[in-house]
């Protein structure tokens, strides 16, 4: 039941992506609105799926890597919809919904049989750790999207070729600013996620640290983001270099899932 619901949600999600992209790139307001509406519907359907999974298991749907991916994708879509309705940075529709869809799709394809879940994963402390980490990575996804758009726009400005790109995307300043704001939310959450993970690991497994992808990549990502924040505050680094670091940090944060779904 949850799987069928999720398949429908993904289909609606894809329709929303296509409509939103056409709407933004071709300046069709009505199409862009239809896209946003479809994405909102996909958001509801994905929420329904997560609820169904949670009810069936009587636990938060954050027990396995694939479930984690579903929640992450849904979070990213949530932030995108909030950004779409609240700000003028509508071009994020070109990046965030596809990123969210990829996460949900990965969760859909990799879905574990419930037998593999450990009873430990239903504990409150673990749920707290995973929710915090997911919210953090979702905020970093917004930073990633803005950084990617920044690089595309800055490239167009430097090469002086694509007028369409220049007018379709938000201003350089807006992309830089919103990307940075997302980082300011995402970084503390990521920090808290890593810290709670260590505490959890210490209480359950009796060790704080093990050399696994799930442990190493978040810490590398954290180091990259910490370096980026230091560079911005202390050295006034902005723009292209800041964008590249934000993209790299997000890539490392995503690699965490290699350790979770194998």
């Amino acid at each position, binding site marked *: 039941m949850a799987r069928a619901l999720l398949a429908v949600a993904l289909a609606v999600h894809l329709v929303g992506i296509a409509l939103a992209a056409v709407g933004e790139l071709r300046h*069709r*307001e009505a199409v862009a609105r239809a896209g946003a509406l479809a994405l909102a519907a996909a958001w509801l359907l994905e929420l329904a799926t997560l609820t169904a999974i949670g009810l069936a298991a009587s636990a938060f749907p954050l027990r396995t890597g694939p479930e984690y991916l579903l929640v992450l994708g849904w979070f990213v879509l949530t932030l995108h919809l909030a950004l779409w309705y609240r700000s003028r940075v509508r071009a994020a529709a070109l990046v965030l919904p596809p990123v969210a869809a990829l996460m949900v799709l990965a969760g859909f394809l990799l879905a574990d049989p419930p037998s593999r879940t450990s009873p430990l994963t239903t504990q409150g402390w673990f749920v707290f750790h995973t929710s915090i980490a997911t919210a953090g990575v979702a905020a970093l996804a917004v930073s990633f999207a803005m950084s990617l758009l920044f690089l595309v726009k800055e490239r167009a*400005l430097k090469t*002086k070729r694509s*007028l369409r790109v220049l*007018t379709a995307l938000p201003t*350089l300043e807006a992309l830089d600013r919103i990307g940075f704001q997302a980082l300011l939310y995402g970084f503390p959450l990521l920090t808290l996620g890593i810290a709670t993970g260590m505490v959890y690991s210490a209480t359950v497994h009796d060790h704080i640290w093990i050399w696994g992808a799930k442990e190493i990549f978040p810490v590398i990502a954290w180091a990259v983001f910490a370096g980026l924040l230091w560079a911005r505050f202390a050295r*006034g680094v*902005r*723009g292209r270099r800041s964008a590249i670091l934000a993209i790299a940090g997000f890539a490392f944060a995503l690699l965490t899932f290699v350790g979770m779904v194998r």
Partner: protein
Amino acid sequence: MLTLVGMSHKSAPLDLRERACFAENAVPDALARLLASTTVSEAMILATCNRVEILCRTADGGVAAPAVTAFLARERGIELPVLERHLYVREGLHAARHLYAVACGLDSMILGEPQILGQVKRAYAVARGCGATGVVLDRLLQHGIAAAKRVRTATGISRHAVSIAYAAATLARTIFDDLSGRSALVLGAGKMTELAARHLVSQGVRDLVVTNRTYSRALQLAEALGGTSVAWDTFGEELARVDIVVTGTAAAHPVVTRAQVREAVRARRGRPLFIVDIAVPRDVEPAVGELDGVYLYDVDDLQGAVDAAMDERRRAAEEAWRMLDVEVVAFDRWRQSVDLGPTIAALSGRLHALGEDELRRFARRLAGLSPEQQAVVRDLARSLIQKVLHTPIVSLKSAAVRGEASARAALYREIFGLDDPRPDAEGSGTGPTHAIQGGKDD
């Protein structure tokens, strides 16, 4: 019938357009004379620096072009043969299509320029204000103006900048959130730099610093633009502070070097710097454009943006024409439904006349009834005829919505013999009220 007689930059030289042009305050009187001296029943005059057009309608379907041409010749004191060589005439739906295209800027000197729509609105307001327009022109203009707005928004025909100075300001707007409160440095005090700086000021740039080798010129331009001036050899400090630089000096060699800007970039702490170099030979070393956070545009780059914008507009124009044709068809359907007026009136007149005939024929046999009962019989007959009329009229109107009104009307005229020269077919005198209702229904 609709008729449009006019001349534009495409058909007539400037001196003739100047002679043919109407001042706005002279238009109401001219319209009054046009309506009084010709068979024209509705009219509007559109007069801009690039075109003079008279749009009119004759109620009886007669040809208006020769009379309107003669009127224009008389009114503006231009010899008729000269005028005729440079005029174009559009009739019927071609006139509607031409008006729509003009309102969209498709016939403008600079494709898609937005001012013309305002001028069309103004011309319509003047004509309407002096009572020169009626049912058809009102509908045509209101529909046309709304259609032009839709077409402009949907196709983006007016979106991109098509002059160098404007392109510079537009590019600045793709970098900075908001130009108001931004600062700009102007190097050189020539015509082109002044124009570019004026565009920036019109976009909200407030803090303007002007410098020039000859300081007095810098002072003059700064005063004219409401900015300040600094000595030429101190502009390096400004590079670290301002957001936008416009240069256009007559120097033979670059005056802004890579080393200079590199130093400024370090002090800027990542704030983007937009440099517009409109000088030939260039004022800014091309290598400056490679620096991080610096966006350097020279004349060719700006011209490239202008050319690209023109290409975009030409592409948009093709789509705009397609949309316009749909709008013209919509207007045509409305017009057809108006043309149904006489047919509907004739049909109704014919059937009611038949009813009257029959009542007269039965008059003697009804004589035994009381006056009240006779009135009831008459009402019965009328009501029956109204009921019979209802479906054919509805069907005719819905045919008009599909654009098939003419054929359907011809069929009715044949079936009911509406064109037969019989006295009882004379119901068409009440046409216009039906005509207006017919128009509102769809």
